[in-house]
Structures are given as structure tokens and as C-alpha cells.
């Protein structure tokens, strides 16, 4: 008994900070995901000239809460012939992998659960890839044809696109020279340029592959509702279904964070070393105040008294956020002696803002694509992956390496490196298109229902 308490206290003493951060993420993430879903529905409504959810709370602001309550009290159905244990395990696996991957991310210079792990990006990519077992096993365990086909499609899709995504990451990592998340962002600060600009082809490849990996439209074949009902999650209902949903959106946040860290400069603001752009530090504060004022203006237009009060509360929260964001920027103006003391908070809060801002932009792009493009056919998806993206990313690694050697030979640094990497990227694109073209000529368009269509 004494040994147990000793081990427990030792554990808590050593790891209380990461444990706390972990609890925070597990507690807050479902809420964030709920609001991402609301934003998605609102954007979809806007693009389709509708209003979207408007009933619960002002402008539907409480809709995620209502949805969560509905999902929790829904009947939990397990099919008769399902493999009960695996059916129970599968959604948990999906969510667990997605949440675990969040541990390796650094949201701003201050907030990271697993501090400075040497394998950084690899950890995030590798662990989030485990979520596929949740999908495959869930599809198998439900003992349904739709589910099984959805699961098979999903695993084929993930295995093919993971290669492309991994090679794209390698091109970016060549510039960073390290896997550590913090050092990658620091390298972008030192070189004064985002790696997404140095390796645009790699960024593009990762963008497409990450959409495919998160099963988002136009690559959402594992859950193509017009052909497979809901794919691998056909038989899941209520809370289990919501776990899959949580995993999917968490994965979106994870891939967006990886892309932000490696290609979009992480928590650095645009042009972090140009001092006449320092006024950008005020942008977060101004933005939040603006949203708050807009909320205040909308208060009298709310139909019910409760909704008016809620809108007031939202505006108040925006002002509070603006205050928090303003404090580190404004305090040094009044007391210059405080600069050193305030510096860590300054970097932490503003860095967090920029990181979340970039992640939001990336996710907005996902949604935009979803409402714009029609779904791919399965053989088209495989063709795109194997015949175009994988050769493209491999060639890109090669030419980017050559470009870097040329760059160091001519002593190019930072922005000057663009002189070699841009022609290299164009070259990679041309070669890949040439390969794709040659492939299509040698192999005339096969009708669907052929060998490549086995799992469609």
C-alpha cells in the first residue's frame, strides 16, 4: 500500500503540469469541436444563401450545446450480430488517437503538453494515423456491408495518402533541419520566411493529402452518403457516433496545426522580424473589440429577452478576451521597466492568437472546398493519389534537396533561397504532370468496374 502511494505521489509530482494540460484539452476540445461544426453549418448556409441554425440562442450560438445534449440522451443501439467488444472499442480508439496527437502540438511558445520532444512532428503524424484502426474495426464490428465497404475504402485511402503527406512533410523538414516543433518555428523565425513559401509544392501536396486523410469532401468516400448511407459509422448512433465525429474534427485541427507549424510559420505573426509592422501586435486586440462592438450593436435586434442577455454576455466575453490580449502589448507603454517581466506572457498570448488564427484559416479552407467541389469517384481518388501526388512529393523532395545545396553553394539565405526553390518546385510539378500524362497515354481510360474498382 505504501509503495502504491509513493509511486502515485512521485507520478503526480513529476507530471502534474502535463496532466493538467491534458485534462484541459480533453475537457475543452469537445466544446471547440462543437463550435467548429456550428461555424461550418453557418458558412455552408451562407454559401448556399440560407440562414443556418438560428433557433437555439441568438444566431444559433447555443446550437452545439443542444446537439451535445441530444446525442448524449439518444438511445444507444448495438446491432444484434455486432462484435460487442470491438464495437465498443472502435470509437474510443479513434478519439484516443486524435486527442493523443494533440499532446505533441505547440499552441504558441508557452502551451505544449509534451515539452520539446525530439521527434515532435513525427509523433503527431504517427499517433494521429492510429485513428484509422477505429474506422476499420468499427466498420468490421458492425457486421454490415455498408460499414465494411466504408472501412475498406477508408483504409485504402489513408494508406495511399499518408505516403504523399509524409513525403510533403519531408520537403518542409529539409529546411527546418529538425523534428522538434519549437525548433521548426524558431528556424522559420531565424530564416525570416515561412517554409510554405519556400516549398509551395510540398505545401500543396500536404494540403490535398490532409483533406484526404481527414475524410473530408471532396474525398469523403468512406462515408459517401449517396452510396453508402454513412459508411463506416452507419450502425453507430448517439454517443458512439458523436465520438467518431469528435475524432474527425479533432483530426482536422491536428492536420491544420501540423501544416501551420511547418508551412505557415507556427505562432509567428506575418513578417516577424520587420519592425515597422510591429503594429500587427495590436491586431488581435482590435479584432476582438470589433467583434464585441458588433455583438453590442446586435443586442437590440434580438427577438427574446433571454437572447438579448446572451448576446450581451457574448459581447462581454469578447471585451474580456480583448483585454487579455491587450494587456501584454499596452503595459510596456506605460511602464517600460515591466517589459522584461511581461515578455513571456506577451509571446505566449499573442503567439497563441496567431497560431489559432492560422489554424482557423486552414480549416475554413477545408470547409470552402467542401461546399465547392463535387465528390471524387473512388478510382479517380486512387489515380490522383498514386499517379500524381506520390510521384510529385517524391520528386519534390529530390529537387528541393538539390535547390538547398545550390542555395548554400551561392550563400543564399532566407528570401533569397526562393531563387532556387521556386524553379525547383516548378520543375517538380512539370515532371509529375509529364508522368501523369505518359501514364494516361499508355493506359487508356478504363471504365469503372475494373480491377482498380474492387473496393468502390
Amino acid at each position, binding site marked *: 500500500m505504501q509503495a502504491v502511494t509513493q509511486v502515485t505521489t512521485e507520478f503526480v509530482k513529476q507530471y502534474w503540469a502535463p496532466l493538467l494540460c491534458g485534462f484541459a484539452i480533453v475537457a475543452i476540445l469537445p466544446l471547440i469541436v462543437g463550435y467548429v461544426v456550428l461555424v461550418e453549418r453557418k458558412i455552408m448556409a451562407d454559401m448556399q444563401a440560407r440562414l443556418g441554425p438560428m433557433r437555439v440562442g441568438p444566431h444559433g450560438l447555443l446550437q452545439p450545446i443542444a446537439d451535445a445534449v441530444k446525442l448524449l440522451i439518444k438511445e444507444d443501439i448495438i446491432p444484434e450480430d455486432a462484435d460487442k467488444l470491438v464495437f465498443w472499442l472502435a470509437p474510443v480508439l479513434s478519439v484516443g488517437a486524435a486527442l493523443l496527437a494533440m499532446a505533441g502540438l505547440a499552441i504558441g511558445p508557452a502551451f505544449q503538453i509534451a515539452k520539446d520532444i525530439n521527434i515532435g512532428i513525427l509523433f503527431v503524424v504517427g499517433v494521429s494515423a*492510429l485513428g484509422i484502426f477505429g474506422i476499420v474495426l468499427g466498420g468490421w464490428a458492425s457486421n454490415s456491408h455498408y460499414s465494411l465497404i466504408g472501412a475498406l475504402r477508408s483504409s485504402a485511402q489513408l494508406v495511399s495518402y499518408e505516403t504523399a503527406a509524409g513525403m510533403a512533410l519531408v520537403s518542409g523538414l529539409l529546411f527546418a533541419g529538425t523534428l522538434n516543433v519549437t525548433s521548426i518555428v524558431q528556424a522559420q523565425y531565424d530564416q525570416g520566411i515561412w517554409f510554405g513559401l519556400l516549398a509551395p509544392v510540398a505545401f500543396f501536396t500536404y494540403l490535398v493529402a490532409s483533406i484526404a486523410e481527414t475524410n473530408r469532401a471532396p474525398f469523403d468516400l468512406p462515408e459517401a452518403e449517396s452510396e453508402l448511407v454513412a459508411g463506416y459509422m452507419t450502425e453507430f448512433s448517439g454517443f458512439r457516433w458523436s465520438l467518431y465525429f469528435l475524432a474527425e474534427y479533432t483530426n482536422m485541427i491536428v492536420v491544420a496545426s501540423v501544416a501551420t507549424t511547418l508551412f505557415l510559420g507556427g505562432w509567428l505573426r506575418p513578417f516577424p522580424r520587420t519592425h515597422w509592422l510591429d503594429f500587427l501586435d495590436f491586431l488581435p486586440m482590435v479584432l476582438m473589440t470589433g467583434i464585441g462592438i458588433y455583438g453590442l450593436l446586435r443586442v437590440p435586434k434580438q427577438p427574446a429577452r433571454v437572447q438579448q442577455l446572451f448576446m450581451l454576455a457574448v459581447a462581454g466575453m469578447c471585451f474580456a478576451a480583448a483585454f487579455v490580449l491587450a494587456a501584454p502589448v499596452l503595459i510596456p507603454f506605460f511602464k517600460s521597466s515591466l517589459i522584461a517581466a511581461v515578455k513571456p506572457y506577451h509571446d505566449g498570448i499573442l503567439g497563441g492568437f496567431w497560431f489559432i488564427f492560422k489554424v482557423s484559416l486552414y480549416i475554413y479552407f477545408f470547409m470552402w472546398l467542401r461546399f465547392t467541389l463535387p465528390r471524387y469517384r473512388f478510382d479517380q481518388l486512387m489515380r490522383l493519389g498514386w499517379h500524381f501526388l506520390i510521384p510529385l512529393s517524391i520528386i519534390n523532395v529530390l529537387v528541393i534537396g538539390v535547390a538547398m545545396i545550390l542555395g548554400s553553394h551561392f550563400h543564399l539565405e532566407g528570401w533569397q533561397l526562393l531563387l532556387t526553390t521556386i524553379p525547383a518546385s516548378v520543375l517538380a510539378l512539370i515532371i509529375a504532370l509529364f508522368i501523369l500524362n505518359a501514364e494516361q497515354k499508355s493506359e487508356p481510360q478504363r471504365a469503372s468496374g475494373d480491377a482498380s474498382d474492387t473496393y468502390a
Partner: protein
Amino acid sequence: MLDQVIFYLFSAVAVAGAILTVTRRNVVHSAIFLITALLATAGIFLQLRAEFLFIVQIILYVGGIMVLFVFVIMLVNLDVAVRQLRFARQKWVALLISLALAAQVGLMLWSTGKMPGQGVPVLSAVPADKLPPNSEEVAKSLFSSYLLPFEIASVLLLVAMIGAVVMAKRRA
């Protein structure tokens, strides 16, 4: 103390997973337990501060090979496999091999401390932040002292890959 508890936890999970892998009737359950065993082994790697090995184990074995395993399991007809007799043909060979392996491990444990430079190496405990960066060290040793084995392994994998492509092309 804490280190020991974590180590024995991972070891127990790995051994239990391995045993369940070979004793389950259902192939998918076997695959799940194999994944468990592999993940527990990865945990032990991590505890030994071999971070790179840990993530390679997860990405390659669990994320790559096991996904393909499960994929194939779902494509083949499982009912036949369930009815087949197991543990029949290679009983004695398996016993022989496992005895040889046990003898080897036992010899290594026995010779610890008896002769210099043999047996289990006892490393001095270095604090985590003083260790050299793991993946960089792996890369250095891989591309300097072990360059030839590395290249041979690469060529082997390339040959296997080309062979697979050729065989798949012939079928279609």
C-alpha cells in the same frame, strides 16, 4: 520506483498481448492484440529514451503493417480459417526454436558481470535533458558507421517493391 512500475506495466501488456494473439480464434481479435503488444513494446522503447525507435515502431508496424494486415483480413474469407486446425504441424520446430532463444537470453543474463564487455550493458543514468538528440544520433550512425548495411537493406526493399509491382501487373 516509478520507472520500474511503468516498465513492468508495459512488459505485462506486451506479453499478454502476444499470448492472446496466438490463442484467439477470431483473426480480427488476434490483430487487435498484436497491435496492443506492438504498442506496449513501443512504450518500452520510449522508456529507454529511444524516441526515434518508439515512433518508427508506431508508424511502421502499427500504422503501416498492421493496417495492411487488417485490410487483408477483411478481404479474405474468415469462416474457412476459423474451422482449420491450429498449432499442429510446427509444434516441435517451434519448441526447439523457443528453447534456443530462451537459452540465449538466459546465457546473456547469466554472463552479466562475469566477463568484461559481455552480458547486459549497465548504463549510467543520464538526465533526459542531457541526452544527445535522439533522431540526429540515429541518422549520424546510420549514415556513417552503418552506411553499407543501410544501403543493402534499401536495395533489398527496392527489389521486393519492384517484385511486387511486377507480380501485380502480370495478374491484371
